[in-house]
């Protein structure tokens, strides 16, 4: 059951978070 919940979270992440969202360490936040 917990596995199913985690998979739902993975699906939401896949569709809700933009593919080009990039977070570089120590550098400015950028969109490539």
């Amino acid at each position: 059951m917990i596995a199913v919940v985690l998979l739902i979270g993975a699906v939401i992440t896949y569709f809700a978070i933009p593919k080009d969202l990039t977070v570089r360490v120590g550098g400015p936040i950028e969109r490539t």
Partner: protein
Amino acid sequence: MSANVALERQTYAKADWRLIPFLFLCYILAYLDRVNVGFAKLQMLKDLSLSDAAFATGAGIFFIGYFFFEVPSNILLKKFGARAWIARIMISWGVISGAMMFVRGEWSFYGMRCLLGVAEAGFFPGIIFYLTLWYPSRLRSTRTALFVSAIAVSGVVGNPISGAIMDALSGKLGLAGWQWLFLAEGIPSIIVGVWVFFYLDSSIAEAKWLTAEEKALLAANLEAEDRHKHEVHIADAFRSGKVWALCAIYFTLMIGLYGISFWLPTIVKAFGVKGYLGVGLITAIPYLVAVIGMIFLSRSSDRTGERRMHYVINVSVGALGLILSGIFAHSPALAIAFLSVGTLGVIGSMPIFWPIPSAFLAGTAAAAGIGLVNSVGNLGGYVGPNVPIWVKPFSTNPSAAP
């Protein structure tokens, strides 16, 4: 490398060494006091005639108190200052955690767990706020990620210690092992809480360990960022679909985290492991795998700057691990191996997740949004420990959840 860049690196390295290990220690204690009830359960349920359902409710009710007092605690943090308020939070949760030894039945158990949540509310946002006093946002996300990785270390260190306490002190001075556990793990939080008050500085200007030049550099970096800041309205966060998507993602992650954390000692005990120290050592294995895996994952994610697919793949592999741990429940070695994959999937995803909100939520929704994501997401902590209870009537497999 110019002299300025060298000075900046050296100054932030100095601030890192001064602040991050100490805050890491604070979070280890926070997490330990939050989940040690999963270990105490192995004895206290029988002693107090509590059911598994009562345990799950009590474990989860912590997050109800935590949820309702998060915002008031944040307001008071601004009023009293981060240093004093973080010290207050730690001392009060240490006292309540220790006082868990006086629990006598179901309702006092619920009451104390809820109070523990109330006491601890505001700790995580308090630390995040404290980091804003030192680091500009471009440097903060990695520090936050490092800070949340304390959860895995807490499991590696805390579980064997919990087991050793229950084995060594059961029956001493007329107290049960679980009572010693709450007492022994509550006291360090009180001590470190007092230490917080003397160790942490309220501002850069107060820091005696920095030179005047280093103070000026840190302050200038924060001022430069402040000039580009907008006024924050909590309503902006509520209106943002992005914030709710992040709340949903974090909610599922918290269900996984607390579903595993609270039930892992029970699952391991069910394998027939002898002695509480034995249970503690074996429950440390999934966390140890999570610590090692997390280092590789974070390095890969940091090197590429990529978060989304790192999160999706790691959580999905973790979910598969949990499913396989249920299928191979009859083989303890395989079940622990797959539980380790599941634990890595959940805990290893936290440092990957936390840089996402600050990058994803641009503008006014960012600051308020991050608080909302943490508050709503943590409600998954109520659901997580209850999942095995809710699923039980529909499953004949005791390992169906997780």
